[in-house]
């Protein structure tokens, strides 16, 4: 398991390649990358991501451990950034390695659902109109009921 919480950018290709190494019984690797999307009006200047140092790492490890207990996974990777990001920048990535694709896909989906509403990050959008905290979506909370 590899959990990274950092303000620096990360290299998706290098992380994915490194993650796949050394696992002879891995038949499937799924990765997801989250990117800062501009709003419909195109006015987003930056996305500020605040987090709770200490609890963030603990919550991510707990989510990843739960995924490992539910699916037959060989490894899990979670990288999440904090600080100021601009549209187009990568915010986070998850990757899962498993013997078979179904477990890898499902576990990655599970990780994303839990990262959305159970990891202590808060997004704030800075636009030409000012700054606003992003409200949590009810859909994101309901998505947890799938699991």
């Amino acid at each position: 398991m590899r959990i990274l919480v950092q303000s620096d950018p990360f290299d998706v290709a290098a992380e994915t390649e490194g993650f796949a190494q050394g696992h002879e019984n891995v038949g499937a690797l799924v990765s997801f990358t989250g990117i800062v999307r501009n709003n419909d009006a195109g006015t987003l200047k930056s996305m500020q991501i605040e987090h709770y140092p200490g609890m963030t790492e603990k919550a991510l490890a707990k989510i990843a451990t739960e995924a490992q207990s539910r699916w037959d996974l060989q490894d899990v990777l979670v990288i999440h950034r904090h600080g100021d990001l601009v549209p187009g920048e990568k915010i986070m990535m998850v990757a899962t390695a498993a013997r078979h694709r179904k477990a890898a896909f499902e576990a990655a989906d599970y990780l994303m659902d839990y990262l959305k509403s159970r990891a202590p990050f808060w997004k704030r959008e800075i636009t030409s109109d000012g700054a606003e905290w992003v409200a949590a979506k009810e859909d994101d909370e309901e998505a947890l009921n799938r699991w």
Partner: protein
Amino acid sequence: MQVLYFAWVRERIGLPKETLESSASTVMELVEELRAREERYAVAFSDLSALRVALDQDLSDFDASLEGVREVAFFPPMTGG
């Protein structure tokens, strides 16, 4: 105990953390103590359905006991990913 605030809770209260002497035995009692202190706390804690609480860095709830707890954090619903 240490009390931490994040996102708009931090902004409304005006500080990221503080050390408190409290006799509260549950999170709810601590919230009542804070609400009674000053208007900015009353405003931040006006709608508990918009707040989450963590005890020693684990998500908890407002009915939970504070016995042995060293760190309490209040924040809005999380928006990771």
